[in-house]
């Protein structure tokens, strides 16, 4: 029997709605569903009053941001103001190239300066202390505003594209603020380019059957990936292997790495799938962010399928700005390496991300070299015969997994221990016990990779079917998914299982 007073309930609601850095508003929460229902009802009422609707979405987005980052929503407003003004100043500079250059440099400096301060200050202090002795500099207590890496990159794409003459600046500031703060992509991407988004802002609001079907499909798939597969296998399997790898056999360590490869993919792509799906329901199209990356047969192909909005951003605004492949072979390789190392650092302020980026940079450069030397070498699996493709896939997948090991391990000692266990203490005899003991984990890993390797056509056929289904079918699908998510959320923690005696 539930016994709760109205006042208590009200107080609890207030508490839930307030800023709490420990409880950001995430799409796979019950609170988001409540808020989305409320939000979308007014959104619909305002569908014909564009400016009012834009203002309303901005306010909701700011609240969305405030919920996890509090007062730091002002940063978002600040960037929107500066880059909006700089965008106009660039255009009004006419043919004065030096002024234009200075202005775009100012925009980049403001954005990267902010990112650097909030994300990398303590990392640099740590490096200085290691170089000049402990206590050389004191660590600072700096809050990392959620999603800063994403909106800073989005905003830079706007000013750089204006500088390059690829887009015209927006007339109204609220349109720019709308672009930058649009809540579906605000905290975890995809990084939507100004040139892709701007044309959609004032277009009459219209969701087609196809958009709706794809949207619901993306939300369901995203929930399954993020809140079922990723959350379950990380808590019940992957984390514990990475925490104490020496306690586990080589086989378990290898499964831990393959599990992590699936976990990070499901986590990252699942969340951006939900973002894409929600945006579609609101009438906006985002670019595709992940395209079954583990199907890749070369590392170059991997980077065309993995976090596409980031890799294409890095290509267009960093690699090409460094000179791309226009300055000779050696410079091309160097540019690739620099791009990937900085790309690695973008993921987090730690050496392990730098190492991960470096590994990918070297792998990409080697593959480019291989393509140049070997006439029959191919860029992607589709161009290969089945044997080569399989070999390439196996090799690429394991290189990528080696990268994930560097990415996830707390320190180099963990990396060493895991590799040692895999190569010296594999213990394949425990496989049957492993499957028996980790039934749910194994089932979810099989489901995750199974979904991943489904032909793309099945995916799009399913989306069509979902879009065309009746309202009740669509509700039933969502309810079943949400129910599974809640079962997983409240499921028992799998106890540690020790196979080695």
């Amino acid at each position, binding site marked *: 029997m539930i016994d709760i007073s109205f006042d208590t309930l009200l107080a*609890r609601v207030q508490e839930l709605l307030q800023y709490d850095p420990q409880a950001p508003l995430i799409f796979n929460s019950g609170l988001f569903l409540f808020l989305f229902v409320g939000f979308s009802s007014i959104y619909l009422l305002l569908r014909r009053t564009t400016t009012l609707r834009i203002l309303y979405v901005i306010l909701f987005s700011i609240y969305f941001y405030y919920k996890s980052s509090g007062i730091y929503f002002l940063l978002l407003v600040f960037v929107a103001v500066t880059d909006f003004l700089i965008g106009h100043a660039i255009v009004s500079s006419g043919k004065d190239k030096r002024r234009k250059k200075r202005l775009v440099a100012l925009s980049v400096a403001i954005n990267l300066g902010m990112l650097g301060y909030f994300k990398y200050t303590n990392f640099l202090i740590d490096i200085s202390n290691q170089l000049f002795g402990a206590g050389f500099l004191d660590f600072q207590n700096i809050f990392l505003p959620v999603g800063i890496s994403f909106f800073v990159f989005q905003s830079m794409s706007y000013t750089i594209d204006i500088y390059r003459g690829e887009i015209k600046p927006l007339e109204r500031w609220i349109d720019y603020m709308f672009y930058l703060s649009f809540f579906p992509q605000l905290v975890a991407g995809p990084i939507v380019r100004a040139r892709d988004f701007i044309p959609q802002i004032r277009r009459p609001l219209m969701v*087609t059957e196809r958009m709706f079907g794809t*949207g619901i499909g993306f939300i369901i798939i995203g929930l399954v990936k993020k809140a079922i597969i990723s959350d379950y296998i990380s808590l019940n399997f992957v984390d514990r292997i990475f925490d104490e790898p*020496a306690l586990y056999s080589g086989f378990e360590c290898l499964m831990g790495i393959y599990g992590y490869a699936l976990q990070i993919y499901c986590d990252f792509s699942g969340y951006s799938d939900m973002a894409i799906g929600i945006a579609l329901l609101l009438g906006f199209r985002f670019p595709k962010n992940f395209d079954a990356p583990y199907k890749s047969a070369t590392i170059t192909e991997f980077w065309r399928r993995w976090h596409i909005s980031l890799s294409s951003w890095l290509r267009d605004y960093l690699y090409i700005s460094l000179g791309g492949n226009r300055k000779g072979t050696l410079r091309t390789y160097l540019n690739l390496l620099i791009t990937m190392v900085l790309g690695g650092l973008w993921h987090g302020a730690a050496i392990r991300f730098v190492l991960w980026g470096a590994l990918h940079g070297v792998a990409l450069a080697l593959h480019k070299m291989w393509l140049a030397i070997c006439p029959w070498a191919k860029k992607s699996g589709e161009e290969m015969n089945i044997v080569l493709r399989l070999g390439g896939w196996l090799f690429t997948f394991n290189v990528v997994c080696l990268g994930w090991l560097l990415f996830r391990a707390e320190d180099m000692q963990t990396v060493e221990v895991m590799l040692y266990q895999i190569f010296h203490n594999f213990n394949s005899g425990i496989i049957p016990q492993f499957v028996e003991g980790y039934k749910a984990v194994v089932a979810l890993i099989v489901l995750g990779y199974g979904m991943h390797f489904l032909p793309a056509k099945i995916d799009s056929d399913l989306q069509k079917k979902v879009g065309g289904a009746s309202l009740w079918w669509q509700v039933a699908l969502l309810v079943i998914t*949400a129910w599974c998510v809640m079962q997983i959320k409240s499921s028992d923690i799998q106890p540690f299982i020790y196979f080695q005696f």
Partner: protein
Amino acid sequence: MPKRPNDYTSRGWQVACTTLLVLLVISFIPPITLGGVELRRASIISDLIDHNAGEEASQTQLAELPEIDVKEFEVDLIEVAQKVAETTATASPMGEATSASWEGIFDEQPSGGDYAANNAQMPAMDSIPLADYSDILPTDSLIISIEEFYEGEGDSPMSQLYEKLLAGKSNVRVAFMGDSFVEGDILTADLRELMQDSFHGLGVGFVPVASPFTGFRQTIKTQSSGWTPYNIMQLKNVPAPYSNDFFVSGWVAQASEGASTRWDMTERRRHLQECRRVRLLFISREESVVSIKLNDGEERTFSFDGDEVVRQIVIEEPSIRSLEMKVIRGAKGFTAIGAEFDDKQGVSIDNLSIRSNNGQAMFRSNPSVNAQINTMRQYDLVVMQYGLNIMQAERTNYSLYAEQVEKMIRYVRSCFPEAAVLVMGVSDRSQKNEQGITPMLSAIDLTEWQRTAARNCGAAFWNTYEAMQRKGGMKEFVNQNWAGKDYTHINYAGGREIARELYYAFLQGAQNYSRAWREKVERQQPIITEPLEGINPLHNDSITLENPLRDSLTHTVVNTEQNAAQ
């Protein structure tokens, strides 16, 4: 304006609304079991309403579940006592004929087992310093004290332990028996470091010769080859006669020809970089030859006749940094039990952890092996850290287990009669449900049952659960990265937190003991206090453990009249 057939703009809202309504209804469906699968309540409003508030946990299902499998670990304590008595009557405490030392056979130098040292005249009572650890200890109310339930005559076993710690003249040996919670020297690594800071001592204590987890242990580096390790929990898979060779450590390793193990001291904690004594413990059923290489230098070989008894090789050197042992001959009958690394004085703490064990695994060890090892290395304290492998989320009654805990205490006392016994209550643990991560409240019940068992046997008790609660409980341990994501096992960082609390408890116990002792002596006789040079065990200047006798009483003749006047 009529809606175009392809316009789905409002469909998103409709779907979201209906989904929300259906989920709200579902939130009120209680947990059900379908075809043996337990389905939790799927509540979208779990952040707002606690559906379980006020509901009594159902005990009916639990009553049908066995609390503990006693049969699998059956033991006859009378038989144990007899075996121990027979062993101690026949085994030579000096280790003659069973032992070899780096310098020669022990009968030439009968200091072999520490029996002699342990039975040497204890320091005179008036040399116990008045311990004052106020610089280290937090206020009393913040310390989780060791609870003593001793009701016998004379000093309690814990008091004897404190006395020995404070006197600082001889070894104080602790057997820390536990489960996976402390596996890999978690908790004990830090407890040892702190205790050795205060009371001297070097080395990691006992380590197995070969096990699948030696790589996990950070406090000593072990490289072994040519051994087949056996675990006491898998007794069915252990062939005779090795199944009868277990010490309470729970691991033995059977040699193949040329089997070897190399240990390197590490710097993972203070006092571990080197030690002064190593004791190798094994059984040699056939004639065997073992070679020992010390510090990558000198190598010696030792020969043994075939016998069922536990053998030891003791190496004493001013600085031991690495040691390699190799079975050159007689591998077939060679069972390695373990090695011990310590000093001739100070504290030595053995981590004797067996995963998946609720404590009963000790009943499968051989009491005779235990007794023989105890003659060589007399334990002063046995800590029993168990309970995680018996605790169930909803169970509150652990009476059967409590009976087994009492049996464990009696078993330990049979095998290690001089040791005080300290029962550690079960650690905190969390579980996941619709409210997220919540504490497993049965830990409170199990703690109470463990305390009752300790009380019934007159043993000591320490409340691990309370110590963890003071630091925010298991959820906070995971948040701080002190524990694993199973919300059950701590890591080294978490071990350090608990070890510090336990260390405080020992210091507080020693401090209180010294005060009580002093009061007692002062009541009985006037004493003349001179600076007690040389008897303060706390020589480490970096630790501010002062002997207040030096400061306040140095030139004072204290007698009972003066005390009364004050």
